[in-house]
């Protein structure tokens, strides 16, 4: 009987010690989290979740290594696919095809932001004149040896505004042309989506296609 009582005491002690340890460590974790989180929480949290998507090479390119593609004909076709996943309601976006160089693609680019501001303002004010202006400026980002445009209907501009519904899939054909069938230096075609335009600002999503000589 004494032996049973001893074992009972040991088990009880272990349970108590475990509970104390658990409480203690949990407190430390909670204190730690309080220390790490901002002292004053944000007034509101916003979710900027873009629809899923990516670009797919259809023709005119071959892989050149290190993430680069090189042209194999004067005209190449790329499909930008937008899937209305991760969005709860219909959303309007402007899709832009912009050209820059690998050295500048990551840096803050005032010229690009001037274009994005103009597009965002056009969307906010529902002003098609501003969109046309922006489209002309975007065209100037391309060098003589490389052109790209969105090929929908009769239009062939580097700017396209569309609406997408949840679970809907859109395929936007983008034609890339090089009159010589090749380029003299490396370029980056940036596929940009502009959306969630509010008075405060706007959101963007970028994806890069690297082109080498």
């Amino acid at each position: 009987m004494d032996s049973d009582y001893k074992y009972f005491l040991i088990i009880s002690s272990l349970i108590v010690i475990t509970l104390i340890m658990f409480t203690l460590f949990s407190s430390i974790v909670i204190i730690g989290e309080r220390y790490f989180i901002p002292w004053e929480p944000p007034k509101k949290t916003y979710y900027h979740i873009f629809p899923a998507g990516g670009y797919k090479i259809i023709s005119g390119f071959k892989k050149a290594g290190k993430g680069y593609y090189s042209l194999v004909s004067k005209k190449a076709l790329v499909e930008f696919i937008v899937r209305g996943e991760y969005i709860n309601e219909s959303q309007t976006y402007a899709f832009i095809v912009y050209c820059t160089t690998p050295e500048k693609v990551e840096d803050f680019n005032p010229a690009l932001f001037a274009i994005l501001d103009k597009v965002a303002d056009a969307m906010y004010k529902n002003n098609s004149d501003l969109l046309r202006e922006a489209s002309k400026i975007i065209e100037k980002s391309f060098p003589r040896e490389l052109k790209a445009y969105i090929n929908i209907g009769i239009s062939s501009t580097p700017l396209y505004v569309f609406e997408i519904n949840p679970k809907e899939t859109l395929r936007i054909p983008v034609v890339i042309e090089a009159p010589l069938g090749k380029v003299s230096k490396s370029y980056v075609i940036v596929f940009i989506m502009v959306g969630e335009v509010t008075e405060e600002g706007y959101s963007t999503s970028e994806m890069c296609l690297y082109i080498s000589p």
Partner: protein
Amino acid sequence: MKIKRKTVIILALSLLLLSSTVFTVLAEKRAPPYANAKTYALPLRSGYASADADVIAKPGYGRARLLAVAHVLGGMEGEAYASSYVEFNADPLPGNSPTLSWAPRIYAETYFHIKGAIIDVGGAQDHRLIISCNVYYYESGHWGFYGCIARSFRNPGDYNSGHVLGKCFDVYDMDIEEFTVTAKCSAVAAASCRQGPCPELYGAVDFYSEGYPYKYIYVPYLELWLC
């Protein structure tokens, strides 16, 4: 009821195992795997411009303090441009950021808490704060910028808000070996007047240290997963 010594040992081991598992899970949830940061500031001296950046980055969280000021005096011609940025897990290396081998779909997400002010006293050309979640690819020994999700704040005023940036990227290039993500925040201010006499132009993005940590950008997590 007779309790055997073996039962006591098994129970004790089970309890210890259970408690250590709970602690481990909590600890991983609290500490996402990123720990390095990069700062950069570029003031151009035409008119008056200044920029400053500071950062704290530790496993589990990162804080940045940014300042960009551009100022052209009234009655004078001049240009001013200033920018500063902080990128968590910049110069990506496998292991510093969450990394993922090639997958047909990847989801990148991060959270920012921004608290500070965008100031425009006299119609500066540009003043903005940009937060972004950048995705990088790795192929044939080379890291490159793959894409990003970003939010640009342009309106002057005080900010105190949380922002989740997220996107599922479809990847059709099967030669890509790995992906990784970074969190980047930039402050930009520019003022320009080329035909005098000019009005006074002053723009500033001030997510800076005065009263720290009352003005800061806070990044608690950065994630990359299959979608």
